[in-house]
Every structure is written in structure tokens, then in C-alpha cells.
């Protein structure tokens, strides 16, 4: 029997606010353990949380960009469970009145994926498990209270590819909105997936499993593909799929049962009496909607319209907000968008790939690339030299001028200077000259090569070719 997959995602994104959701501790990543805590985020008795206004704003930005309904009267609830990374023994979250509801995001195919809800909540601390089985774990509460939004989709995704595409699109939007840096490797973007199978063409839903510990886009695709195979095999043998949480094991490329839902958690949600309701003024929501930045799709279309980039270029460059910003910054110093796009897609992306560098970590000053492209256009340096210089610009952050000076790379276009070399080569290789005059035009190529050697590759090839032919033709007439 053929089965179809039914997939839904639950995405957590850490918001890039300066402070935590309910206290003024810094959210900076990578600080020493337990140096960013206070009585509120440590859950000490007698403390009171106060909601960070930016958290509401950022969540609304996400909701508006994802076509959600905004809940005008909302509240925060306590989700109760015991775990040492949760100092209060409850997480402040939202249950029945999330800030945003009923949105959607379309895939490239045009298929809409419904977004059930987006709510705000606090992150938990970080547990460090001792590896030597010493019988204890360590807790760092720096992350406790860092604001999160949780985005939940309807089970509208049908393949691992659709799930990966959705998550990539969502990530791009959140980055464009400036509300999260969405680094999966640092845990600022996390994704759980639930998946069930049903016989092809039917509506009857199967038992779903929930997949956790998905740490990359690749892992999401693979974990789902693995789970489709595992569940298909069970169903083909007429066995039942158990409703459970399964952990993706990257090293073994498989999912493994974590805990069965039989002992399902009872979170006993109730409104947090320490926090007052959020009543959103429609004017405030309209203000946020009006101030939404340009989103990836709009930017792509603008690049096609304004810069006449082919769709392929526009898609690739707007794939990263940082790259798109870089491209536009280059155009402040250089006026040929297609040449800039070619150089970025060719040289820049190649070097970034070699170094494993993300666009946000680029050292290149866009003005420097603009300057370099300008020099190539003006013939001051050849395209080959330009690429070499750019590699140095890329690695060191130095300006093209500095590198050209230091390496003596300036292209020689000066006619009198080049004419001396041309005549020297004509004298040095009389056989090739005779060959050329005898009709073997290829011999000119050899002579050009010699001139390039004499000038250590700094001669402008167009100029020397012109000069050489001119000199040779003169000789023919003599």
C-alpha cells in the first residue's frame, strides 16, 4: 500500500531582544555560566515578572508578516512541570490566547501552509550532562527567561522536502524581520516535527510521532524521511505506530523512542496571576504593520524590477538578508548591478563556501568591492587580477588600493610603455614574426603570451593585442 505523510512543525525562535522576557538581564549568547541571572529569572520567591515590551512587538511582527489574526486581548499562562532547567517549576507561556493565530506561509509551488498560532514564552536554562557518569548534571540559567516565539503549523506539509523548504522560508522571514538571528547551531532556532502516515488518497489520520533533537535543515529532512520509512514498514506489516516522542540521533541517522505519550504530561495550565492581560490597541498593531521591513519575496521582485537582475540572481541574493544588503551597498559605489551580482554569485559565494563563512560574518567592505569592479571596468586591472585581488580583500579586509600598491598589480595600459615591450618581443622572436607574416595568425597569440610574461601579467591584453597587430602589419607593408 502507498502511504502519504502528514507533517506539522513546531518552531521555536529566540528573539533578539537585549534583555530577557520578564527581567532586565542581558540575553547575550556565550557568556560565562550563570553570569546573566537575577532573582526573577532564578525563580526566587517573592519576585515579580514584568513583560518586555519588545517581546510583544517582535511577536506581532512575526504574526503580521505571516498573515496572522492578532489576538486583541491576550494573557500569559503557567505551564507546570518539573525539570532542573526550569527554576520556578513552571514555564510562563501562552495557552488558549496566543498573541497571533490563523496565519499562513506559501511554498514556492504556491501551496499554502497554515500557521495555527504564534505565542510568546520564556526559554529554559541549559543543562550540562556530566559525561563520566558522576551522578550529577550542571545547570546554567543564563538562557532561562530568554524570550521565544513558538510557531505552530497545521499538518499541511506532505514531504520532507516541503518541511525543509517551509523552515528555510520561515527562517529567512524571521531574519528579515530583525527579530531573531535564527542560528540552528547556537540553538536560537529549534524545530520539532510531528508526522503520521495515511493510506494515499484517504483522509483518515494515522498515529503521529513527535521528532525532537533536530539540529539542522538537513537533519529535519533526514529525520522525516527516516520516520516515513519506519512507519511505512510497521503499517505494511499491519503493526501499529505508537504515539510517542522520538529523538533524532545524528550520529546513527535514526530516530529513537524517548518516552511514550501514555505517561503524557499534564501541564495544568492556568493564567499567571503575577502578570496582567495584554490588550492590544488596533492603532499600535497598525503602526507595527506599517513599519514591517521589506520581506524576501518583495525584495526579490524589487531586485528584478529595479536592477533588472534575472530571477535566478535575485532569488539567490535575497536568500540571505545580509547578502542582499551587501549587494545594495556595493551598488552605492558601483553602477552595474548585473556585473556586481555576477561577481558576488561567482567569486564571493565561492570564497564563502571555501571558508564555510555565513553572509553575516563577511569582512569585506562593500565599498571595496564596488571600487574593485570599477577598476576592472576601467581596464586598470584585468578580470583575472581582479579576482586575485578580491581574494586578498576577502581574507584580509584590506582595500583593493592597498593590495594593488603592495603587490604592484596595476595593469599597464600606457601605450608608450607597452610599445617598448612589444618591439622587444618582436626583436626577440623573429621566427614567430615570420610565421605570422607568412599567414600563421596563431603566432600572434604566442607573441602576446611573451609580452604578458615580460610585463609579469600586468599588461592590458586588449591594448597589447592592438599594438602588436599594428606593429606587425606595419612590417608587412615595409
Amino acid at each position, binding site marked *: 500500500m502507498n502511504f502519504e505523510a502528514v507533517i506539522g512543525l513546531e518552531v521555536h525562535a529566540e528573539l533578539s531582544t537585549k534583555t530577557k522576557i520578564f527581567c532586565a538581564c542581558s540575553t547575550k549568547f556565550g557568556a560565562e555560566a550563570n553570569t546573566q541571572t537575577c*532573582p526573577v529569572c532564578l525563580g526566587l520567591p517573592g519576585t515579580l515578572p514584568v513583560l518586555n515590551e519588545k517581546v510583544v512587538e517582535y511577536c506581532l511582527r512575526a504574526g503580521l508578516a505571516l498573515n496572522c489574526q492578532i489576538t486583541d486581548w491576550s494573557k500569559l499562562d503557567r505551564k507546570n512541570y518539573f525539570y532542573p532547567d526550569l527554576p520556578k517549576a513552571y514555564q510562563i507561556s501562552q495557552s488558549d490566547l496566543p498573541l497571533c493565530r490563523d496565519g499562513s506561509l506559501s511554498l514556492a509551488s504556491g501551496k499554502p501552509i497554515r500557521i495555527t498560532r504564534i505565542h510568546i514564552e520564556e526559554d529554559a536554562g541549559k543543562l550540562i550532562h556530566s559525561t563520566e557518569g558522576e551522578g550529577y*548534571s550542571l545547570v546554567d540559567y543564563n538562557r532561562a527567561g530568554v524570550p521565544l516565539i513558538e510557531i505552530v503549523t497545521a499538518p499541511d506539509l506532505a514531504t520532507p522536502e516541503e518541511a525543509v523548504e517551509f523552515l528555510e522560508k520561515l527562517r529567512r522571514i524571521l531574519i528579515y524581520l530583525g527579530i531573531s538571528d535564527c542560528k540552528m547551531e547556537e540553538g536560537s532556532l529549534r524545530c520539532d516535527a510531528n508526522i503520521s502516515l495515511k493510506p494515499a488518497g484517504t483522509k483518515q489520520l494515522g498515529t503521529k510521532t513527535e521528532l525532537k533533537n533536530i539540529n539542522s535543515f538537513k537533519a529535519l529532512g533526514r529525520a522525516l524521511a527516516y520516520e516515513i520509512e519506519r512507519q511505512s514498514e510497521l503499517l505494511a506489516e499491519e503493526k501499529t505506530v505508537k504515539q510517542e516522542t522520538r529523538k533524532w540521533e545524528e550520529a546513527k541517522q535514526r530516530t529513537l523512542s524517548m518516552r511514550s505519550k501514555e505517561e503524557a504530561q499534564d501541564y495544568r495550565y492556568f493564567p499567571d496571576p503575577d502578570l496582567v492581560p495584554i490588550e492590544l490597541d488596533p492603532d499600535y498593531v497598525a503602526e507595527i504593520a506599517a513599519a514591517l521591513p521589506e520581506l524576501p519575496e518583495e525584495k526579490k521582485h524589487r531586485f528584478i524590477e529595479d536592477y533588472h537582475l534575472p530571477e535566478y540572481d535575485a532569488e539567490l541574493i535575497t536568500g540571505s538578508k545580509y547578502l542582499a544588503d551587501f549587494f545594495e551597498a556595493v551598488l552605492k559605489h558601483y553602477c552595474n548591478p548585473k556585473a556586481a551580482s555576477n561577481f558576488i554569485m561567482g567569486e564571493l559565494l565561492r570564497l564563502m563556501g571555501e571558508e564555510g563563512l555565513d553572509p553575516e560574518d563577511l569582512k569585506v567592505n562593500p565599498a571595496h568591492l564596488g571600487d574593485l569592479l570599477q577598476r576592472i571596468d576601467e581596464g586598470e586591472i584585468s578580470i583575472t587580477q581582479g579576482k586575485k585581488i578580491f581574494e586578498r580583500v576577502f581574507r584580509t579586509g584590506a582595500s583593493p588600493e592597498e593590495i594593488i600598491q603592495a603587490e604592484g598589480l596595476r595593469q599597464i595600459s600606457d601605450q608608450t610603455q607597452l610599445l617598448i615591450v612589444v618591439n622587444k618581443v618582436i626583436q626577440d622572436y623573429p621566427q614567430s614574426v615570420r610565421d605570422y607574416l607568412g599567414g600563421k595568425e596563431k603566432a600572434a597569440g604566442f607573441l602576446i603570451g611573451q609580452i604578458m610574461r615580460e610585463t609579469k601579467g600586468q599588461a592590458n591584453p586588449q591594448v597589447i593585442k592592438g599594438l602588436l597587430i599594428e606593429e606587425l602589419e606595419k612590417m608587412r607593408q615595409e
Partner: protein
Amino acid sequence: MSVSEQELRQVAELVRLAFSEDELRVLVGEFNRILQFVAKLNAVDTTGVPPTVQGVKVKNRFRPDQVRPSLPRTEALKNAVAVKDGSFVVPQIME
């Protein structure tokens, strides 16, 4: 509305409280007396009254997103039962 001993046992487990069978029997009685007491509210006609989640009329209390100093680590860890590498030590958590 009332609770059974079984329900109470489940709630106790969820909140990590251990009771003896004798204590549970006493608690069931006390719980149900509280529920009866609160049940008097059911007599109030609430037709047309919107539900609320708060006893106070305050709403929209926000804080600007400005960093203030956190606790020094020694202060933060002062009440910990055990400390290692600047972190709270807790019993091993099995993954």
C-alpha cells in the same frame, strides 16, 4: 463537584508531594469541603458576564528593553546546595 482519592494521588504525584494513605484519606475530605465551599459561586447568575482571568483591572504593564546589571555569580549561586564550575549541581538527568 468532588475529587476521588485516585485523582488526588495523581495530583500529588504531579506536584511531587508524597502522602501516606492515612494522610490522603484526610486530604480527600478537606479537598471536597473546599470544593463545596467554592461551589456556592455556581449559584450566581453569570449570564452575559464575560470571563476574566484576573482579579485586578490593571492591563498592559510593560518594561523597556534595557539591560540592567545581573547578580554577581557568587550571589546567584549562594543558595545552591552544591556548586561546580560556576554552575548549580543537580542530580544526574538521564537523557
